[in-house]
């Protein structure tokens, strides 16, 4: 078994170096799907994060608590709910999104929304009203002062975005249930790994896993560098 693993590892590296089409296809699709999901989630999560992080309103704690509670939502659970929504007889069935990349993108965007909202709200809250007051007393308008706060919170918001992307690219449940793992259409890194492993194609599974790990690790490394820059 040990020699099999080493053999698998050797052939996996060969596959990556030689540019195996299955490896490249799954990698690019994963980057595309999860990257788009991250950008999509950012569109609504950042404004929500800014509001929670900088404004006081009734129900703020409840809202924050809800997003915190949803941080660990199981991907299969969310996958099931969205599957029922997207399926032919579901309320969103008329859009025919099931088993298309769009479905995975939307699913992952929803999955990572709590991470992005919570993390960015915390980052903005940490900057505090002090920076806003400071900007104002230096002559900034309300909008300019908010920009100053956002600029101060940028490292924290970047962390939120990267953590979200990592969660999206590494999840399996949603990609499998909403995408269906169709080769050349919805097959991404995680679904390929699951499939190839059950098929006994260990070397391909290992190659894909190495790539997935490389993506996640290099992003985490970048995050750490960013953090060190800050302190």
């Amino acid at each position, binding site marked *: 078994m040990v020699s099999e693993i080493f053999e698998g590892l050797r052939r996996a590296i060969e596959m990556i170096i030689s540019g195996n089409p299955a490896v490249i296809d799954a990698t690019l699709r994963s980057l595309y799907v999860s990257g788009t999901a991250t950008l999509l989630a950012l569109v609504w999560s950042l404004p929500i994060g800014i509001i929670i992080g900088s404004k006081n309103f009734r129900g703020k704690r409840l809202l924050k608590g809800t997003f915190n509670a949803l941080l660990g939502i199981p991907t299969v659970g969310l996958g099931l709910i969205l599957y029922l929504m997207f399926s032919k007889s579901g309320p969103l069935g008329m859009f025919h999104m099931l088993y298309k990349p769009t479905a995975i993108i939307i699913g992952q965007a929803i999955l990572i929304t709590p991470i992005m909202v919570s993390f960015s709200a915390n980052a903005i809250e940490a900057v505090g009203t*002090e*920076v806003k*007051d*400071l*900007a*104002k*007393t*230096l*002559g*900034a*308008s309300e909008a*300019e002062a908010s920009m*100053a706060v956002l*600029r*101060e919170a940028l*490292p924290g918001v970047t962390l939120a975005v990267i953590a979200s992307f990592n969660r999206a690219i590494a999840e399996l449940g949603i990609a499998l249930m909403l995408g269906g793992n169709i080769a050349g259409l919805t097959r991404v890194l995680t679904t390929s790994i699951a499939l190839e492993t059950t098929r006994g194609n260990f070397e391909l599974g290992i190659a894909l896993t190495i790539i997935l790990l490389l993506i996640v690790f290099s992003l985490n490394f970048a995050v750490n560098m960013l953090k060190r820059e*800050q302190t």
Partner: protein
Amino acid sequence: MKALLSLYGITKKYGEITALNGVNLEILEKDLLAIIGPNGAGKTTMLKIMAGIETPTKGKIIYKGRQITHNFDVIRRNFTMVFQKTVVFNTTVFNNVAYGLKIRGIPKNEIKSLVDEALELVKLEGYENRQAKKLSGGEQQRVALARALVLRPEMLLLDEPTANLDPKTTSIIEEVINYANRELGTTVVIATHNMFQVQKIAKKAALILNGRIIEKGTIEEIFLKPSLVMTNFAGFENVFVGNAKPTGKGTALIELGNGLEIEAAIEKSGKVTVYVRPEDVIVSKIPLESSARNVLKGRIIEVSDSGQVVRLKVDAGKVITSQITRRSFEEMKLNVGTEVFLTFKASSVHVA
């Protein structure tokens, strides 16, 4: 002199708490006004209202004869505030100081020379490219001051600008404040509970207690009637009211109550108000043999840590505050309950 800003019946409530209660105050152009009061008296709230970053619950604000009701932009553009807790943007010193200029759309080359000038004023030449957050507390506060002054504000509002700073930084900041007021004609309002600073730099003072101004006037007026005003300073650091008896040798013994007597280098008799700078009070574990006339024995009842310096409250009959360096504090292994001796010179006792 014309009035720059007038406050009429300003009240500020935060929920149930009334921070300011019907404050009336007129600030003339080129004034250098100190707002004195203990923590929680409403000093910061008052400055924030004057800076246009806090709206009063009730009352009128008149800026150069014009009532300001909703649009505080005009105040924000012309007045600047420096906060007690130094806030710097997480970027270079240059970008910090240039912030207000950029917002005002000043051309780049002009910004460069204005920033250089401002940094020179606070003795931070050559710091342009340093990260502001990596500077010491004193340096950060000087960046904050440069960042405010570079805008040539009509009025500079300072909230305890030298609290917890080392003496060297304090004197640089005091010099700059004086320079701005005298040479640039900047109106200055400074909130402080440092009596020494008030006497040293301010022209006028207003005393605030529980959100009300209870006394205002020129420094001479305020400090010459200590019996009336200064008794209200109970709770201020190292300000005591006592009875002076001249010794006939160029000093006076001042009875502060609770059996506490201190010697001051002034021949005075009768009721006086005295003040000792916390920095001038030396702390030791054994009595010091020195030329200093005052050696008191007491016990530490409170330790407040503020970075490079530590403030100790020592019960020696009256509570006396001493400010020492963090290094001394650690080396002497001081803590609440430690028995210590306080030593200060008769000439360190300021008598009003």
